[in-house]
């Protein structure tokens, strides 16, 4: 597998507060990496730094020669404009994902039509974005993130506002994208038990890296046990095993 991005000793300080402390990890092609950790552990900050939205204090992101920031699709935690009456149709919102290059190259209406069919939102294209349900909106923002055909898709807590049934559907949709379309995934979540069912790699973050490796190795991690305690680790891994068992 060829490497897409390598994060080398990334630190982010907001004044005296340390949000990230020397975080290193890498994403290869076709990885599905879940970034987990408690609230305020720096998960979103790390991704915002990777996307160039937050300035790093030290360290660097090394992009492979055949991969650029423009090939990243992003589904932010609070992507949407919270004004319910914002006058934008679903079609117009998906179009904002297109960069100038794509606008010139592709047949926009065909691309949006195909993508919206795939995501089950073709009947919503003319509707106002603010009038859709949370689940429908998430699909629209996913379409916006995918319209440029990204090599890497970053999803920041995409299911936090969804009810359990829709949440499961959403995870299945991401799984399909990963397996069939070969899109690499970074998924931020605080719900380790759910994401460990799908992720190939786990990055457990608490300002610094507590664990980074294959998801199957998580429960053997001494660092994790030291960080969150043996009881919490046991509980976490029991849940994880249980979930795996149910799925099998």
């Amino acid at each position, binding site marked *: 597998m060829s490497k897409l991005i390598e994060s080398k000793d990334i630190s982010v300080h907001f004044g005296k507060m340390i949000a990230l402390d020397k975080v290193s990890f890498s994403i290869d092609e076709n990885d599905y990496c879940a970034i987990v950790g408690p609230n305020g552990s720096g998960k979103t900050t790390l991704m915002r730094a990777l996307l*160039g939205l937050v300035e790093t204090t030290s360290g660097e992101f090394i992009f492979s020669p055949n991969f650029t920031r423009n090939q990243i699709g992003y589904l932010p935690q609070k992507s949407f404009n919270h004004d319910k009456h914002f006058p934008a149709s679903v079609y117009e919102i998906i179009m904002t994902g297109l960069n100038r290059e794509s606008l010139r190259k592709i047949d926009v209406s065909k691309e949006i039509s195909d993508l919206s069919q795939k995501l089950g939102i073709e009947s919503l294209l003319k509707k106002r974005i603010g009038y859709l349900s949370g689940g429908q909106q998430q699909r629209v923002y996913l379409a916006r993130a995918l319209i440029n055909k990204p090599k890497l898709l970053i999803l920041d807590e995409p299911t936090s506002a969804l009810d359990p049934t829709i949440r499961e559907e959403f995870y299945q949709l991401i799984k399909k994208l990963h397996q069939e379309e070969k899109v690499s995934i970074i998924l931020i979540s605080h719900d380790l038990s759910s994401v460990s069912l799908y992720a190939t790699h786990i990055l457990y973050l608490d300002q610094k890296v507590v664990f980074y490796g294959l998801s199957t190795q998580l429960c053997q991690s001494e660092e994790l046990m030291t960080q969150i305690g043996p009881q919490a680790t046991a509980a976490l891994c029991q849940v994880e095993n249980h979930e795996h068992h149910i799925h099998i």
Partner: protein
Amino acid sequence: MQRALIVGLLIAISSSFLGIFLVLRKYSMIGDGLAHVSFATVALALLFNQSPLLLSIPIVSLSSLLILKLSEDNRIGGDAAIGLISSTAVAIGVMISSLSKGFSVDLYSYLFGSILIISEMDVYLSLILSLIIICTVLYFYQDLFAMTYDMDYAKVSGRKTKRLNQIISFLTSITIVLGIRVVGTMLISSLIIFPTVSALRLSNSFKSTIIWAVIISSFSVIVGLLVSIGFDLPTGSSIVLINATIFILSTWISYVRRGG
């Protein structure tokens, strides 16, 4: 009369093209702030017997960039930045007008708009500048829309948001300077705000909001000018009151559409 209609229509179209990007980003008061700056520049131009239009464009544009720069400072914020610049400008304008006793009537016509001050050169300048505004907005339409909806995503998708902000500020400055001939410095921001806010009540998409805003703005400027000439009323006030009536009507239509 003919000049006033042409210039009025051009300003109506330009301001409604820009209005949606400013109103939806809660930045519409920049129009008001820049109008106050243009009050100072008009006073300065009258003092030195220069063309108010030519002197206002560079100074108001620089002020808009200064407001933008101050807004980026988290300790100040957008509304405070506008307040700082506009109140300083008004103070300078009042100071100049009190120092030179001779041009109070002229200044009054720039404050509240008068079609009598529109020259042939104003018509040509308005035509050129309005074309620049409309073409620029159309060229950057996708980028401006993306930025208005979600600034972070616009940055992530590789859009140069800082430069786009500067472009919007510059275009707003030009619109303000052009508009003070017809509606005056005190009322020009209403041309940016009213048509967009009324259009928002009538449309479902971003594009249709712009189209509605252009229709409403053009209608209010034409009817306002005709009423002002026909009944010998102040031009700016007539246009703004027509706009206010349309706003009330559109609010009522939107209320009825939603089923009361």
